[in-house]
């Protein structure tokens, strides 16, 4: 029995076809795409092809709207900082409380530099408060940045509608679509989205390659200045092998889009239903009717996520958790807190994220493995007695201090 990888929102395995396509660009096709000679020429054509493949996946109108970057984080930073530099009179940013740190840490830093950050909250299912969002849109806002899909719960934000709202208010709109691209159909030419970030390693391409989509005529200031690569919008010699790999991965993602939204989704539902049918005091978090097809985030009350992961790992099952201990911080996941999930459940959240490589037999094995692990940890828990939580658990066990 091989190990089971259900942590595809963290990163995915490179598709073998992606690797095959990349290999020549480490060996004989080593030229610099900017060079005039034949060494460079072929490589330049390969980059062009990859750009077109990405363009198709995200439905961009022009291939020049695709800018290759080094990762999703760079795309996020480039987008937000560009909007601020291009519109220096605008000193406000709107985002949500549940963004990835790639956006939230930057926003926090910008706040220290004097910008005003509006963080729009979510409800118990992780759905964005559109009224609060509308209320913050104003000519003072340089950019509204909202993730397309949440990396922890898979919850989908209505970014197309939110981009329309921003557009009406004359505000630029960016979406961190790192988790959405490759899992949801995207057709940017018919949206008002000005900028979009994606990352190769979430869709079976290698790590360290990303894209910033920049709608034509959106005012832009580069993060990295230097050579004329990417039309001067992202200087630095291209990571050609990774770009070629991302192109192939984009094509494969499009081919598997239906599979992802039928077969993978069915396996995800079976996994969630199978676990919840057997484990008491557990529930799925996020907007379960409107989320990524591959993601199930389950809160197991009265136990802690890292302990669950260690025991799962011992059974050869890889997942991830929103507990404080897994990240070495003092608080559980900000996404769980934003949804108002109580601490006794937030620390026990486990994210299972599937991919097109996931198999039915693996799902069955996980459904069998989880209940005894949860039961075993609950036996150690001061909130638990026998086969159920203590009556009024939070009163029965109320430890002292901070």
């Amino acid at each position, binding site marked *: 029995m091989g190990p089971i990888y259900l942590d595809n929102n963290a990163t995915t395995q490179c598709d073998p076809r992606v690797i095959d396509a990349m290999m020549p660009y480490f060996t004989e096709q080593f030229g610099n795409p900017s060079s005039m000679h034949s060494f460079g020429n072929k490589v330049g054509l390969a980059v062009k092809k990859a750009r077109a493949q990405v363009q198709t996946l995200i439905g961009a109108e022009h291939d020049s709207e695709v800018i290759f970057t080094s990762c999703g984080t760079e795309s996020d930073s480039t987008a937000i900082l560009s909007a601020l530099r291009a519109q220096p009179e605008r000193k406000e940013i709107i985002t949500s409380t549940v963004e990835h740190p790639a956006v939230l840490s930057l926003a926090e830093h910008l706040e220290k530099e004097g910008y005003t950050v509006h963080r729009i909250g979510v409800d118990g299912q992780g759905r964005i408060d559109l009224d609060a969002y509308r209320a913050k849109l104003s000519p003072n806002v340089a950019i509204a940045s909202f993730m397309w899909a949440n990396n922890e719960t898979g919850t989908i934000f209505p970014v197309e509608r939110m981009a329309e709202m921003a557009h009406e208010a004359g505000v630029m709109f960016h979406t961190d679509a790192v988790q959405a691209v490759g899992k949801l159909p995207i057709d940017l030419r018919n949206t008002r989205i000005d900028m979009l970030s994606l990352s190769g390693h979430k869709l079976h391409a290698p790590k360290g390659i990303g894209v910033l989509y920049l709608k034509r005529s959106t005012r832009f200031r580069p993060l990295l200045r230097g050579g004329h690569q990417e039309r001067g919008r992202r200087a630095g010699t291209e990571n050609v092998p990774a770009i070629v790999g991302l192109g192939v991965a984009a094509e494969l993602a499009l081919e598997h889009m239906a599979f992802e939204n039928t077969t993978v989704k069915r396996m995800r539902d079976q996994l969630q239903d199978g676990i919840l049918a057997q484990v008491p005091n557990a529930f799925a978090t996020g907007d379960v009717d409107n989320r990524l097809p591959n993601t199930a985030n389950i809160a197991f009350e009265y136990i802690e996520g890292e302990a669950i992961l260690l025991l799962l790992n011992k059974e050869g099952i890889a997942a991830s958790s929103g507990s404080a201990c897994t990240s070495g911080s*003092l608080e559980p996941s900000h996404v769980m807190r934003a949804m108002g999930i109580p601490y006794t459940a937030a620390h026990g959240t486990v994210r299972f994220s599937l991919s097109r490589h996931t198999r039915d037999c693996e799902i069955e094995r996980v459904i069998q493995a989880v209940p005894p692990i949860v039961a075993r940890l609950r036996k150690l828990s001061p909130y638990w007695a026998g086969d159920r939580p203590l009556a009024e658990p939070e009163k029965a066990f109320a430890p002292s*201090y901070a």
Partner: protein
Amino acid sequence: MWDYSEKVKEHFYNPRNAGPLDGANGIGDVGSISCGDALRLMLKVDPDSERITDAHFQTFGCGSAIASSSALTEIIKGMTLDEALAVSNQDIADYLDGLPPEKMHCSVMGREALQAAVANYRGETWTDEHEEGALVCKCFAIDAVLIEDTIRANNLGTVEDVTNYTKAGGGCAACHEGIEEILGRVLAERGERFDPTAKATPAPAMGNLARIRKIEQTIEQMRPTLQRDGGDIDLIDVDGNRILVSLKGACSGCQMEAVTLGGVQQKLIEALGEFVKVVPVGAHAHAHGSACATEA
């Protein structure tokens, strides 16, 4: 994944003394549900001898919290209450062959549960002044609260000061931005501005001679342990905050050497109250780098 020792894993997979304890007469509930770590320690104490005849735990927490709880119960069983109270969080960590810096607070929690349980047995109320902040310096497991308190108490103004007083920032230096931020905040309270070019206030004064004696003493204290393992250590020279030593015998092998030097450095930092770096000198010193690299 955390770099847990085999001992931590073993205690996590097979926790000793887990679950409720009938007839417990000392119970300590400590921890913080917001941080995701909480522990109930239950003791059975023989009233005549004040000896702990049994100890159990229930823990809501991560792998190292469960392992620390398990270790604690094993350590204190059979001890008198006074002996048990002398157990430090470092003893718990040592029992488990060490904990990652992010996880040292698990051992602190164990120790506090012990104090709370003993207080409960004695009919006292236990209050805790412990306040935990976000981990700032990973190299030395120093949190924001400790740094902030130390800056306030000693009127510190530079990162170097903070390193001299708390060790935070004395290793890889990655945490200097975080330390500067805390300095900025605390200095603002005093109506001052953080000045990155300011000179550090002189380290807690220790004369040169006293300092060298202290270094010698500390190394002498560690020698018997090293000699027991077939090794030895000699002080060669002291150059500012670099302490040059030569290692011999079993200590000079790659893996052992790193561990030994780390331990000596830690002890010296504690003894001197300042950050120092222990540097090995001698024939073998240059060769071990590549060996380590292949091993890792």
